[in-house]
């Protein structure tokens, strides 16, 4: 048990730069720099402009999911269904375009609406029936993927999309900037603003820290939580469009396992799985650490398994390091003060 009086004193005297220096984000920047230095020496053509853009290009689909996972986890929830919904949305889009004969852009809009509705299913179960998000989205994880397989009988692969649509995922603006990058930047800025600059983001944190406290402050908790899951569904659909445009095909297995990668990026980015604490720029850094690691290893001719092993190890090391640091200093301890003095913080 740390002494909160001392903490508030630290709070008073710690200058801003010092806080920033010792922040979690700073730790990630260090990890990132270390990665870059290592891969610069071990990898071929690692520090080149093209490589930078390629890393970004391949981070977009996962990045979209990670970005929207941030507010979800901030509210103390989780969405395991995004990867499956990506697959289902890809199929819906492909079917609308090919089988229903829609214009690809109209089909895209319908797919986005579909994604939001599917997210709404999670939202309804979570807010109306007060079910734990972990379980609800575990169920919809199976359901969405199952529906995608059922719709295509698993076999059907929609391809042959028009060039204008494929440009979204394969083209380069001015010959160098990947076409999906502006979308990603737009969404990143949008989510960043949402989380850090609006009352919505404020509400998400308040709900994450204390749903009851938020309710007693007149925050419409159910509506905010529902919004997050609907947004998550919408974003999964957007990610599906980019995915389809990038790979030129819509198939039921699109996006398998992406939910875990997205959660990893978010948690690695310093967002507390219990909710309340976290930032979008942290998520972007976490994403960058993952993406650089993956690509750096391939450029160093190392197998992908090593990347996954290191990712898992890094995740544990970063979290454990944080806890251990907390025991010695008092980062975040000042935040959780006497309220829970006698309580063991419940997990899960």
């Amino acid at each position: 048990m740390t002494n909160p009086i001392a903490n508030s004193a630290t709070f008073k005297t710690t200058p801003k730069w010092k806080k920033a220096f010792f922040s979690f984000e700073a730790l990630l920047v260090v990890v990132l720099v270390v990665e870059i230095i290592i891969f610069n020496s071990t990898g071929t053509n690692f520090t080149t402009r093209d490589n930078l853009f390629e890393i970004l290009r391949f981070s977009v689909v996962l990045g979209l999911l990670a970005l929207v996972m941030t507010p979800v986890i901030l509210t103390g929830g989780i969405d395991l269904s995004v990867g499956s919904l990506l697959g289902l949305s890809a199929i819906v889009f492909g079917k609308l375009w090919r089988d229903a004969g829609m214009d690809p852009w109209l089909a895209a809009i319908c797919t986005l609406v579909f994604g939001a509705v599917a997210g709404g299913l999670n939202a309804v179960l979570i807010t109306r029936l007060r079910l734990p998000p972990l379980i609800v989205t575990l169920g919809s994880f199976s359901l969405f993927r199952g529906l995608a397989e059922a719709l295509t009988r698993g076999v059907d692969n929609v391809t042959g999309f028009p060039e204008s649509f494929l440009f979204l995922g394969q083209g380069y603006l001015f010959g160098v900037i990947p076409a999906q990058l502006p979308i990603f930047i737009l969404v990143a800025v949008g989510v960043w603003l949402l989380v850090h600059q609006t009352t919505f983001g404020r509400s998400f944190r308040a709900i994450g820290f204390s749903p009851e406290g938020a309710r007693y402050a007149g925050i419409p908790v159910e509506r905010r939580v529902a919004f997050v899951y609907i947004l998550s569904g919408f974003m999964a659909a957007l990610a599906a469009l980019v995915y389809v445009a990038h790979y030129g095909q819509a198939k039921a297995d699109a996006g398998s396992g992406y939910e875990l990668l997205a959660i990893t990026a978010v948690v690695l980015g310093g967002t507390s799985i219990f909710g309340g604490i976290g930032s979008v720029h942290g998520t972007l850094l976490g994403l960058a650490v993952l993406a650089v690691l993956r690509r750096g290893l391939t450029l160093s001719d190392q197998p992908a398994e090593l990347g996954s092993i290191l990712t898992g190890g890094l995740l544990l090391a970063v979290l454990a390091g944080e806890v251990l640091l907390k025991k010695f200093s008092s980062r975040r301890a000042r935040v959780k003060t006497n309220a829970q003095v006698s309580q063991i913080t419940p997990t899960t």
Partner: protein
Amino acid sequence: MKKYFREISVAVALGLLLLVLAIFAPDFFKPTQLLTILTAAAPVLLAACGVALVIMCRQIDISIGSQFALCSIFAGMAAGHGLPMPLVMLLAIFSGALFGAINGAFVAGLGLPSIVVTLATMVTWREALRWWREGEFVRDLPGSFQWFGFSQSTGQIVLLAVAGVVFLILVFALKHVSGGRFVYAVGSDAEAARLAGINPRLVTFCVFVLMGALTGLAALLNAIRFPDVDPKTGTGLELQAIAAAVVGGVAISGGRGKLWGVLAGVLLLACIAPALVFLRAEPQWERAIQGSIILLAVAADGWRSRKGKI
């Protein structure tokens, strides 16, 4: 009756499925078919019991599929090196317990959220295994490996007996040994448990170790059904086990649930895939059906607890 509402409703669902099969596909009840389903479900049952304990303790473990695969490979390699089967079994259980202890140390020792910890260990173990084995089967095992060296029918019965005895011991221990009750106590209210002199962290740690040991045993029981070991085994087991526990009425909020319900949940989910074969249904509906069953089960829970509150 009301107390066992959930367990009974799952059992009724299972009964209905079996009834439909009895009418439309009586072949389902051939001994070879039933024995295969049961022997395939027995390891899942053990893993699901472990997961149920973890969930009752208000934690979660999604790394069991990876643990399962590693334990299978260890067991296979040990047998391949000529270790006697009892030692192989001990090794599988011990290595599982070790994996569980690693999870437990992070969760109970450092207080990290179990979902993140086990997510990390899931990925790490699975990928390490893939890197190591590159998908290669463990082959050329001695004859004493498959079915412990018994004939097939004896082996199946031995397997079921081992799983059944362990299951019954767990059921008994959870109900009639104080340590079992501690699991419920910690999951129900960790602070009240502390006041009652129980060490919640220690209980949580032990539950993870037990979970690992059960996974190790499950892996062995699964492996001995075959003459060689596939390193891909256990993929997706975590979801199967969690789904079975949840469908069987183990509350994700901790403190509640019965292993009999888990048994019903495991059997229900285990029967779906073969039932689809027997009912000549299209295979692509399988996942959608499983997802719907899980959602239905939790929605029913939500509905009931909501009605109960008012």
